[in-house]
């Protein structure tokens, strides 16, 4: 359980996190979404007691991080993948963490095996690829078998195989009843992993909602219809107050009535339907819509899904 209340942090005159309140409960994967620079990493550092908030409070299992008796047994965090001394081996890095919290040294080899780094355990971390560093960071997160886990952009630098592996890992941790808080600027990634999302923009909370509710809420939800009698159907739908758009491929996008209402209307005309497919707006679009006003660094063109491109800073 992670609880933030009125969390505020500024660096000089720049407000990084602004009156942020949310709670992350155990047993589900909670996504932490926001454009780059929206305060996700800062928030995670405050949870970990690394940065001190200027106002507000954040607790892990009801206590401040500083007051935890055995921090690594209680909380595991992947904050940044490359935060490992390049001259130190993977095993030595984990060993020094284990020793600080009286974790049995055999656990070091266990977590190395879990993340698939056993064969390079003795190699210096400086030679690791970003993906391998991420895996080492995840190994460190699992080291103390913690109840609460935090992952800041865990799939960065991973290949498709690695990404799938992280997704399953996160879901598995949640299934075991742990608290899983994972940040991403990629809505599409969250759609596949998270059960619930905390969305922030410019350091402020935009929404904390279950992911399917986010989709359902989105005004971009529509139904795609194909029919030989599309003109008649279009007219009937518009008379009923629906917004329709005739797409270039000949299909009709209908906003307003759901697929049941459209099907019944078609039957009453009657018009033959070739396709009647409810479309969720992509999560990316839903996310865009929510954070539209809060994107800090607009690219030259913001019409596309800028947020899904890795390079945006």
């Amino acid at each position, binding site marked *: 359980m992670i609880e933030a209340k009125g969390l505020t942090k500024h660096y000089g005159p720049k407000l990084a996190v602004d009156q942020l309140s949310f709670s992350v*409960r*155990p*047993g*589900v994967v909670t996504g932490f979404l926001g454009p780059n620079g929206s305060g996700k990493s800062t928030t995670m*550092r405050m949870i*970990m*007691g*690394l*940065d*001190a908030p200027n106002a507000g409070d954040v607790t892990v299992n009801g206590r401040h*991080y*500083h007051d*935890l*008796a*055995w*921090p*690594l*047994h*209680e*909380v595991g*965090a992947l*904050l*940044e993948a*490359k*935060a*490992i*001394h*390049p*001259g*130190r*081996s993977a095993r*030595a*890095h984990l*060993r*020094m*963490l284990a*020793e*600080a*919290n*009286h974790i049995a040294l055999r656990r070091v080899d266990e977590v190395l095996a879990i993340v698939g780094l056993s064969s390079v355990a003795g190699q210096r971390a400086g030679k690791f690829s970003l993906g391998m560093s991420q895996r080492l960071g995840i190994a*460190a997160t699992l080291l103390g*078998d913690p*109840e609460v886990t935090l992952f800041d952009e865990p799939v960065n630098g991973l290949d498709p195989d690695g990404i799938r592996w992280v997704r399953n890992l996160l879901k598995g941790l949640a*299934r*075991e*009843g*742990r*608290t899983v808080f994972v940040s991403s600027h990629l809505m599409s990634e969250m759609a596949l992993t998270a059960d619930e999302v905390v969305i922030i923009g410019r350091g402020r909370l935009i929404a904390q909602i279950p992911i399917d509710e986010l989709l359902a809420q989105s005004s971009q939800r529509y139904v795609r219809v194909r029919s030989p009698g599309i003109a008649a159907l279009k007219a009937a739908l518009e008379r009923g107050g629906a917004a329709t758009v005739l797409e270039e491929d000949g299909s009709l996008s209908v906003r307003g009535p759901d697929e049941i209402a459209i099907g019944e209307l078609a039957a009453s005309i009657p018009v033959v339907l070739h396709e009647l497919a409810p479309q969720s707006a992509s999560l990316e679009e839903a996310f865009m819509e929510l954070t539209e006003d809060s994107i800090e660094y607009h690219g030259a063109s913001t019409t596309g899904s800028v947020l899904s491109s890795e390079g945006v800073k």
Partner: protein
Amino acid sequence: MSGTVGTTKDLPPGRYGISGLLRSEWTKLRSLRSTMWTLGITVVLGIGISALATAETRAHWSSMSIGDRLSFDPTSTSLIGVFVGQLTIGVLGVLVMSGEYGSGTIRATFSAAPRRPLVLVAKAAVFGLVALVAAEIVSFLSYFLGQALLGAPATHTTLGSPGALRAVAGSGIYLCLIGLCALGLATIIRHTAGAISAFLGILLVVPIIVRALPTSLANEIERFMPDHIGAAVVSLHMGQYSLAPWTGLVVLCGYAVALLVIGGVLLVRRDA
């Protein structure tokens, strides 16, 4: 929620503390090749320079004037490598802390042990002990090798000679304290380049500036400078404007403690 792990987890009794952190810091220190190299260079260079200086003296002994022969201090000459060793020990003291900031490991360290002053205590203890052992190896081996190289007819001493043991053991302590001062500086400054510059500046540049002051003032200040304290420790002839060897080491210890305390306060105040 299906709490199979989570809330039912058994934690070890008590709380994480200094014993775990000491082991952790020891692992950190010996798991870096750069540490081992720096320590090795300190020992080899320190002993090597001492050997060179004493061998040189021995070679020119017959051509030295009577005055030079009389004022020759075989003990301090054989310990000259200590003043080279202080540079590498200092760099190591800086790296032990700044390396964590440079690589970001400091955040992993503070995640494992959020009580930051305790981490600093463990780090200073482990590094201080390792530095002391390396430094004593340098000073004792330098001394024995130097005295052996000097030999008759050149003046030489034994550990039993008045003040010799103090000079040899003291110079090891001096090196260790210089290393701890560097660790303290690095805790305050956090950046490797900045901390090494500050360290070398205090050790090598500030004395030059002080010497440019009016002599009476310079003499008063100079005795408190680290390099001057070191010179007084290795020398058997006490200078007029020097602190007594042990007094000097206590002052130097005070510098190290002050720097570490300031560093510790900043560790707590600043974001990691």
